[in-house]
């Protein structure tokens, strides 16, 4: 099974700070990690390879330092990494990102499955996975919590819902986005870490891919981030106390006063 896993390098968000003057993320001194959901995607890809044979290729779009994320993925059992990197891709929103990634995937050639994490911990849109499948015109199943079975032509998965789960059978090739319930990611192995260290990361820029310049980078991004700010703290409010019937009366009369 030829598996492609798309990952993103993100800041380790437990310590995120915003520069109060520019309202942008302070990235200096913040460690970069593989987006947590993508770690589950990598693990699932490696497990499927162990189960069905084949190969796991990791693809990421990012700045040169995203090389480290690809190497980490290789240490976790992936076979090779492709870095899609070019100044022209800077400022991409999810439309441009998923378009660019699908261009890279087209260049890779034949594949059976693409796996993405549910969402990125910095953007939180959960749009890139579905975007890729749309650009590539392949079926997508999101929030996958288990791969039940697969054959050459199809795959049966469990899809997590708010209450329970669906069982969905999809033809291949297809794209899955996965949730944390799907597996427990392994730690890297020593052999994996050594393989990762000496791995040759493939780097593709704009000139290597067949992309319509209208759809890439800042200019190709329909959504623009205008402002990032810390919302002002909500002030006080009014505490009502007393027995419940009393509170209800006070609340009703407060609402009436507000309306007038």
């Amino acid at each position, binding site marked *: 099974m030829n598996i492609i896993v798309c990952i993103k390098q993100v800041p380790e968000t437990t310590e995120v700070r915003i520069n109060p003057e520019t309202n942008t993320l302070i990235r200096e001194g913040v460690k970069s990690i593989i987006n947590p959901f993508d770690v589950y995607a990598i693990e699932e890809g490696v497990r499927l390879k162990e189960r069905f044979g084949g190969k796991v290729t990791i693809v990421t779009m990012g700045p040169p330092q995203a090389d480290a994320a690809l190497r980490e993925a290789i240490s976790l059992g992936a076979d090779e990494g492709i870095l899609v990197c070019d100044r022209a891709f800077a400022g991409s929103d999810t439309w441009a990102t998923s378009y660019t990634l699908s261009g890279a995937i087209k260049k890779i050639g034949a594949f059976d499955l693409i796996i993405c994490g549910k969402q990125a911990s910095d953007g939180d849109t959960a749009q890139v996975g579905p975007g890729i499948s749309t650009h590539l015109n392949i079926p997508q199943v999101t929030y996958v919590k288990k791969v039940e079975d697969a054959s050459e032509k199809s795959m049966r998965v469990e899809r997590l819902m708010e209450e329970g789960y669906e069982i969905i059978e999809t033809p291949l090739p297809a794209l899955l986005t996965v949730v944390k319930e799907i597996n427990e990611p392994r*730690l890297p*192995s020593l052999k994996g870490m050594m393989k990762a260290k000496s791995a040759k990361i493939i780097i593709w820029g704009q000139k290597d891919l067949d992309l319509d310049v209208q759809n890439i980078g800042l200019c190709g991004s329909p959504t623009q981030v205008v402002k990032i700010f810390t919302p002002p703290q909500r002030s006080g409010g009014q505490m009502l106390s007393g027995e419940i019937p009393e509170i209800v009366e006070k609340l009703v009369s407060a609402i009436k006063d507000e309306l007038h």
Partner: protein
Amino acid sequence: MDYLLTDEQKMVKELAHKIAEEKIRPVAAKHDISEEYPWEVIKVIAEAGLFGLFIPEEYGGMCVNVMNLCLATEELSRACGGIAVCYAASALGTFPIVLFGNDEQKKKYLPDLASGKKVAAFGITEPEAGSDASAIKTTAKKVGDHYILNGLKHFITNGGDAETYVVIAMTDKTRGARGASAFIVEKGTPGFTFGKKEDKFGIRASSTRELIFTDCKIPAANLLAKEGMGFIVTMRTFDMSRPGVAAQALGIAQGALELAVKYAKERQQFGKSISSFQGIQWMLADMATEIEAARGLVYSTARMVDAGIKDVAKESAMAKMYASDVAMKVTVDALQIFGGYGYMKDYPIEKYVRDAKITQIYEGTNQIQRSIIALALIREMAK
């Protein structure tokens, strides 16, 4: 401090550190109380490839490198000396086969030990033969194509949970120390049973049992090297594994120091954190410096062993003796820094004191280590 580790050594340390923090620390207290063998952690250590650090590549391992083994053992011990010793003791039981096994023996036993599917143990100590290892009474009598083992080993780490045992037994009592031989014995061999599991003060996650041999028949093919090589096998094995015990002590000390510094920063008395009091600061400074000194001895010795330097007995003894004495001192001081809370089992530090103590005793007591050092010095002076 920069230990000038190679990239490979840094990877080993980083990986062992990750395992320690993510997989060992959360379960250390549980295993200390239940004394249950930490198979789930062994599995993680195995999958990470750390059992390959003392097994050659052609038998499923990665390399035989004592420095790597020490780095891994030290990091694992930072989180729990008891769980770490399950790993280190498997190295102890595996080294005889790596060093003295023939190709068939290596092919038969090493792959499962490299994959962590099985763990090993080394059996020499007996009730009447501790420091005086040459006083062992277990016998191995050659009968046709087999040896029959009779006797009792005790205080064997991984005893009962290991599948592969290297046992030292007397094949010729008349030859004294040259009359001992080393054998590979598999768990489940008829006549090979285990005694009770010892209820220990520390390293309670590890299992310590008696090995009981009652007319235990093993194939002659399980003899390691030749008859009479038993103590040579033992000494060469200890040369490789002793730095590992020193590393375990080092890790325990380091783990205790880290907990003490963290606590000292958090604990407030007299309106400020106790880390701002000179008395505490000086204790921490002494602890940290002693650990670095111990680390210097351990790493130097490990590097010497890997460089193939044959005579490392003195240095190896120094490393083990000093690191374990430091571990005992540092853990007790760390508990002192925790004050009353340190005395309570709810807090993790008392376990470090209990785990440290054994490092001054096993793999040769620190008294024996001092004798080894002194004799080596005197011998050197006589030249």
